[in-house]
């Protein structure tokens, strides 16, 4: 037997299965790994095409706005900080601060989306969107670059939207004391998800905005 860190879970005689926070976080991490592999697949595609079309990728990336990208990076990193602060606050039994930090996280997330919206609409108004005339007439490498750009930032954006919804629910739970200083694994898991969204962006940002 090799169970050195085995944790014997006490079984209760009746009713539901025993609460297991470590297990809950383990489940969340496993889910995050699936996300990692999902984006990993896209990064793989990106890698292959960047290898095949490196010139065109550099050229196409000129169209992207580094300023907006940097701003969004800062926004997202800060939201990651606030959600972590929110957990610490709750652990210190400061519900008020926890609520404030969590709300701030949601605000930052929305700010990110607003930014993204302006960025995308600018591209669209320049006629660069999947299937557009302008794009089809560009070189293959550029078509692929923008295809990937829209797909990867789009799916990342989708995760942000899901994150906002998730965090909002958590916020309600927190306010209604469904999440408390001794039962806050839901908040932790939402936080983990949110950090993952941030992690993905940490890689998306240099790969799309910083290759001119």
């Amino acid at each position: 037997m090799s169970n050195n860190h085995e944790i014997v879970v006490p079984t209760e005689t009746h009713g539901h299965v025993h609460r297991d926070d470590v297990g809950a976080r383990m489940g969340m991490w496993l889910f995050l790994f699936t996300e990692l592999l999902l984006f990993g697949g896209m990064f793989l595609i990106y890698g292959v095409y960047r290898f095949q079309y490196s010139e065109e990728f550099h050229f196409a990336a000129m169209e992207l706005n580094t300023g907006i990208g940097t701003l969004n990076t800062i926004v997202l990193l800060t939201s990651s900080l606030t959600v972590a602060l929110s957990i610490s606050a709750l652990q210190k039994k400061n519900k008020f601060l926890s609520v404030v930090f969590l709300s701030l996280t949601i605000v930052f997330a929305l700010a990110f989306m607003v930014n993204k919206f302006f960025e995308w609409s600018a591209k669209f108004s320049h006629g660069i969107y999947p299937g557009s005339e302008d794009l089809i007439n560009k070189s293959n490498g550029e078509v692929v670059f923008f295809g990937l750009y829209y797909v990867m930032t789009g799916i990342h954006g989708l995760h942000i939207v899901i994150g906002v919804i998730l965090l909002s629910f958590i916020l309600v739970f927190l306010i209604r004391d469904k999440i408390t200083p001794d039962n806050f694994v839901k908040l932790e898991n939402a936080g983990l998800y949110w950090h993952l969204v941030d992690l993905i962006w940490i890689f998306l940002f240099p790969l799309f905005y910083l290759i001119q």
Partner: protein
Amino acid sequence: MQDGHSNEEHSHVTSYGTLVIIWLALLGLTSITVTVAGISLGMYTLFVAMFIAAVKSALVINIFMHIKFEDPIFKVFLLVSALTLLVIFVLTFVDFSFR
């Protein structure tokens, strides 16, 4: 919940200070990576950018995501996942870099 090692066992609280310091570090790294991208380093640009991104994610995973204070098995899991991803990348490039 009777045994010593139950739910609230990870009572580790990361202090506000630590979190803010990590955040500052992340912002600092971001400005470095943006600046470096401005200078033309040729081949090394990608390398530097990815290195910085890796450092940033290590900070997020360890401190923000608390993995440093979790059961060691979590780290094993993370390693396995990262290794899988690495394998997929390497083997795919066995095709594309020899075309």
